[in-house]
Structures are given as C-alpha cells and as structure tokens.
C-alpha cells in the first residue's frame, strides 16, 4: 500500500516544525552564540574563539576540568549504584517475595517528589547539628561518623549522588524488572531442572538476557550525568560549594551565562561555549544510543 506524499507531509510537518523551533534552532543558535559575547540584551559582539580560549586555557580552565571530572565521577557512581542496586532490587521483586507489589511502589515514590522538595528535605536531613542522618548515626552509636555532609569537600559530591540515587532508583528498578519479567519462565525452569543454582541462573541467564536494557540505561545515564544540574543546584546552589567541590558542567554553565550571584556579569556567549563542550561529549554517545536502539528494533 502506498501513501500519498501529501498525507505523509500532513503528519510530518507539524512535528518537524516543533522539532525545528524547540530543538534544531536553539542548538544552532547556541553554537553560533558561543562565538559571541552577549549579556542577554542588545547586540552581540563577535569574539571568535575567545570564549573557548577562556574556557580551555584561560581563567575558567581549572573550573572546567574540575567540573568535567565531577561529571565523570557522577556517571561512574550512578552506573554502579543505580544499575547495580537497581538490578538487585529488581531481582528481589521478580522472585515474587511477599509484599513485592508494595515494595515496588515504595521504591518508586521518591521519583514522584518534586526536585525542589527533595533539595529542601535532604537539606534538613543533612543538617550537621539536628539533621536526621547525624541523629540516626548518634542513635546507633556511630556518632563519630556524624559530619556536615554537604559542607566537606570529601563528602559533598558523593552525598549529592546518593540523594540522586535515592530519588531515581525506582525508575531503574522498574525498567530492569520489566526486562527480567520479559524472560520466558520456561528458560529458568529448564535451568533449575538441569541443576543450576540461583547464582548461575542470575549470571548465565538473567543478566545476559537483560544486557541490552543495561546498555541502553548506561547510555542514558551517561547523557543525564553530563546534563546534571538540578540536584546540585538544589543541594549546594549555583556556587557548587564547598569551593567548587560539587561543581559540574551544568552549574559552571549557569554561573558563566547568568552571572552567579548579585550583580555579577552576564555572558551568554561564554555560557554557550560551555554547552557546546557538553554537546561535544554527549553527542557521540547519543548517536551511539540511537544506532543501538535502531539495531535492536531491526533485529526484533
């Protein structure tokens, strides 16, 4: 059956228009803007590669490298915790333990809490003097471990990542659980009959058969890790303290583009050059993601 071109266009053009206005245009405008100095109002001044020079070799080089490393750390820890823990919890829920349904809902609840509220809540929980976390540690005799979690260079970023895991874990659990439940029960039953134990079934059957889901999630986590802004902003603010120890490319972009605090200078061009850097990191991985999804659909 052939579809007439004009009908195809009727369906494609509205979506293409929206995509062009909200994705393509801002993307190219950011690319162009990165070669200009612009305070957000009035005319733009062409500065060539000056913004990139300032970022990579000038006064922001140290901050850029520092923020980039934090994004990498963010990604590695998220992979380990969200996919690792997500897999373990999904396995537990898939084994049809008593109350699995309730537990599934509980796991997902933090995902429904608005991020501003998450920031406020954890700000209170992590209060050094009266916060829930330190009080609990004192209650179980581990008072020596109580500390200002968001105020120390060594703990602040990891704490933010853990809050992120607390909030998003439910999503990963649900996706991995769906992949596990997609496996034919016959395969697992057959393995049991052949004498395989739970360990072998997990690593020889379940993990290989859900690997494509892990691969997809890992790629998405990479993209999200390099776009992270909101959790850091909610917990340590745009200054990403203490002394930039929680700084990521997203907060660096905010400070360079919008001027940080008070009457600070605004330079959208410099901010745009940070976003171009983020794009350069994320784009190849995004293309890989699209390729893998396409490949999976073709083979399905």
């Amino acid at each position, binding site marked *: 059956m052939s579809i007439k071109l004009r009908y195809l266009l009727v369906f494609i053009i509205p979506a293409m228009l929206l995509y062009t206005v909200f994705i393509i245009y801002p993307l190219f405008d950011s690319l162009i803007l990165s070669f200009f100095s612009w*305070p*957000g*109002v*009035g005319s733009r001044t062409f500065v060539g590669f000056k913004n990139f020079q300032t970022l990579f070799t000038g*006064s*922001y080089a140290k901050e850029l490298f520092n923020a980039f490393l934090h994004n990498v750390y963010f990604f590695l820890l998220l992979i380990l915790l969200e996919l690792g823990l997500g897999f373990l919890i999904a396995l537990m829920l898939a084994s049809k333990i008593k109350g699995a349904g309730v537990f599934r809902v509980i796991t997902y609840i933090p995902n429904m809490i608005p991020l501003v509220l998450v920031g406020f809540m954890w*700000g209170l929980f*992590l*209060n*050094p*003097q009266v916060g829930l976390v330190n009080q609990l540690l004192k209650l179980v005799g581990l008072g020596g471990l109580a*500390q*200002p*979690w*968001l*105020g*120390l*260079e060594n703990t602040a970023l990891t704490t933010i990542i853990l809050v992120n895991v607390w909030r998003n874990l439910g999503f990963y659990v649900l996706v991995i659980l769906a992949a596990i439940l997609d496996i034919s029960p016959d395969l697992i039953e057959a393995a049991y009959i052949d004498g395989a134990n739970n360990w072998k079934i997990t690593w020889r059957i379940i993990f290989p058969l859900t690997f494509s889901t892990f691969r997809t999630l890992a790629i998405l986590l990479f993209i999200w890790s390099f776009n992270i802004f909101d959790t850091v902003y909610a917990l*340590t*603010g*745009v*200054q990403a*303290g*203490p*002394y*930039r120890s929680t700084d990521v490319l997203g907060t660096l972009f905010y*400070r*360079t583009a*919008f*001027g*940080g*605090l*008070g*009457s*600070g*200078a*605004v*330079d959208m061009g*410099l901010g745009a050059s940070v976003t171009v850097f983020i794009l350069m990191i994320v784009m190849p991985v995004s293309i890989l993601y699209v390729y893998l999804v396409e490949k999976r659909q073709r083979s399905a």
Partner: protein
Amino acid sequence: MKKKILLVAVMALLVVSAFAGKVTIWSWRTQDAEVWQKIEALLKSRGQDITIEFTAYAPTEYDSKVNLALQTGTGPDIVYSRRLPGGRTQVLIENGLYLPISDHVDLTYFPQASLNSVTWENKVYGVPFAVQVVGIYYNKDYYDQFDLKEPTTWDELVANAEVLKKNGIDPFFVSGKEAWTLTMQHAMVGVSILGPEWIKDLTEGKTNFLDPKFTDVNKRLNDLKIYYQNGFMGNSSVDQDASFAFGQTAMVFYGVWGYQTWKQLNPDINVGYFMVPPITADQKPYAYTYLDGAIALTSNVKNMEDSIEILKFCATPEFGTIFAGVTYNIPAVTGSTLPPDPVLQEALEVYSNHASPYVYWVGSVFTTQKPSLYDDVLSPGMQEMYAGKLTPEGLSKMAQDAISQWYPPLMNK
C-alpha cells in the same frame, strides 16, 4: 462597513479600558506584596483610581524573566531593578529598556550616595527603595548574662567570643554552605579593619590584594573560625535564622533583612547590632551598606501616567514609612518614620553616619566582570580557607590573579 468600524471602536475601547488605571509591577521581593496593597488603598482613598498588579518571581529567575519580557514587549510597566554598577542593569539601560525618570520624579529626599547607584550618564533610572546594613547582630540577653559590652576593637570581639565559648554558648553561627554569606562576612570585616581609604587605594590601583593588610583580614577571619558552631561548613542561612532566633548562638554576621525573620520566629528575641570593630579603638568603625535596588520605569510601559504617579509616590517619605512598617527594612528615601525599634534605628544611624564610601563586594567595581571578586574569588576562596585548604596568603593571591586579568588599575601589579 459601519458595523466593522463599530466593532473596531468597541475593541479599542476594551483594550484601553483594560489598561486604564492598572499598573503592573514585577519584583524579586515577595515580602513587598503587602506594601503595594497598602499603597493602592492609600492612593484610592485620595481619589487616584490606580490598581496595582504586583507579581514576585524567584530571585534566581527574575533577571532572565525581566530581560526576556522587556525585549519581547511583554514586560510590566514598572520593575524592581538591580543597583549600578552592575552588568545586568547597565545593559538594560544602554538598550533603552529602562527609561530615565529624572524629568518626572522629584528626588530631593535621596542622598547622592543612593542616587549614584541608579545614575547612568547623568540620568536617573529608578527610585531607590531600600538600603541594607550588614554587620554583627547579637543576642543581648547573652551579652547581659555574661556582662559583655559591645566591642570597640577586634581583640575585644575575640575576647567576648572566648567568654561565650567558655560558658558553653556558640559565639558565632556561620552558614558556611552558602558561600555568599562568607563573602559578605569578609566584606563587612574589610570596611572596618582596612578602612575606606585602603579600599579607595585598591580601587585606584595604588595598592593591590597582595598587600599584607588584606592578608591580615583573611588571617583574622581564619583565626576566628574556632568560635563558629561545629560543622559550620554544612549550614545554610535558614539554619542560621533558626539557631539565632531561638538563642542557640550569640552572634551572626548578617544583614538587617534578617531581623524581620528572627522576630517572626521568636518575638521575644532581644537583638542588638554593632559594626565590625576595627583593630584599635581610635580607628573609626565602618558599616557595609548598599542600595538594594530601585523601582524603575520600563520601555514596555502601557500606562505611563499612572506609573509616573506611582514612582512619584515612591520618592516620598510616606512610601518609606509604609515600606519600613511592613518589611522592617531601611527605606532609601530619607525623612520616613521607622517602626520604633532600636535595631532599625541603629541601622539607620549607621547608614547615615558610618557607611563606608568604598567597598569591594556588592555595589563595587570588582564584581562587574569575570572573574568576579564575589563569585569567582571570595565565594570559593573563603570556603577553601575555612576548610584549611588555602592559606590567607593564598586567598590574597587568588584575588589578585583573578581581578588583575581584567581590571586595568590592578594589572601588572
């Protein structure tokens, strides 16, 4: 045809009547909503049929919202504008998005210092609305209990802290998680310890941040941290408000805007104020004061006549009286009647007689470009020094390295 003309006429009438008497105002200060309700009621009682539509946005989103709205012609008649010098306001003025008000509004009730913060090329852009006074706010009950006196020298301040600490009271509460409070602390100590003359010399390039005097300020602050509450690097200003209001700490380095919050949390709190004391008693102490902002007329104004009337009112002591009565802030307009509160009276006295004419934090030239002394130096630098990862000398070098990149008087120094 006649019907069409009639329809257009009705539409035009509807549009005109929709804007008639209505003035739209945008701000980042939610606490001012009641001020505008009172002003609207007062103007109406005087026969001026003006309806004020006040909208407050989150401070972090406010500037982008105003920029975008004014450029697309969807902005309000009046906005709260940031002070000068400052890149954000300056570009709006340069691009004609804020209109000068000098020809419409009588500004005789404002000191020149306030007007300087809203003047560009001899034209005034906005009516200044509030001034902020920062310094040390203390719990008078603790001072009375331990027979302490307001310190006149830095050593006396440290001695007071020592007495409080020995008696189990946290002498200071510092919100180290919020870097801006640390920069403010540095700036308020700087105006008294270094003095305005030194800051003037810095601004003119006669000295620089590597001067041992600047390092001495860093060192004094670093030495003071033993009197801060445990875990201060993890605390926010919200924690500080609660701790100070409920008497868990004796002193805070803060601004007069916090006073209303403390009183709301604990109406019985007995608060006192003093400027950061200088090194010796014969030095004059100074307070860090700055204009919070102005009420500005935008190029998007749809109701010019009534907007001018509002701005005229904002330039009168009557506005200041209403403003101070609601917000417990110091109005920028002189001649107002403040609530009969000793802290506010003292803040006003300090603003009038002890305001440092030269500063290096908010309202200074050092924050107008990148890297900024506020965002890029003192914010991370103070945290780093307090964490023991940066020496006082290192902080001075960090400041010099950053500002000398773009500020001509400090280049090659």
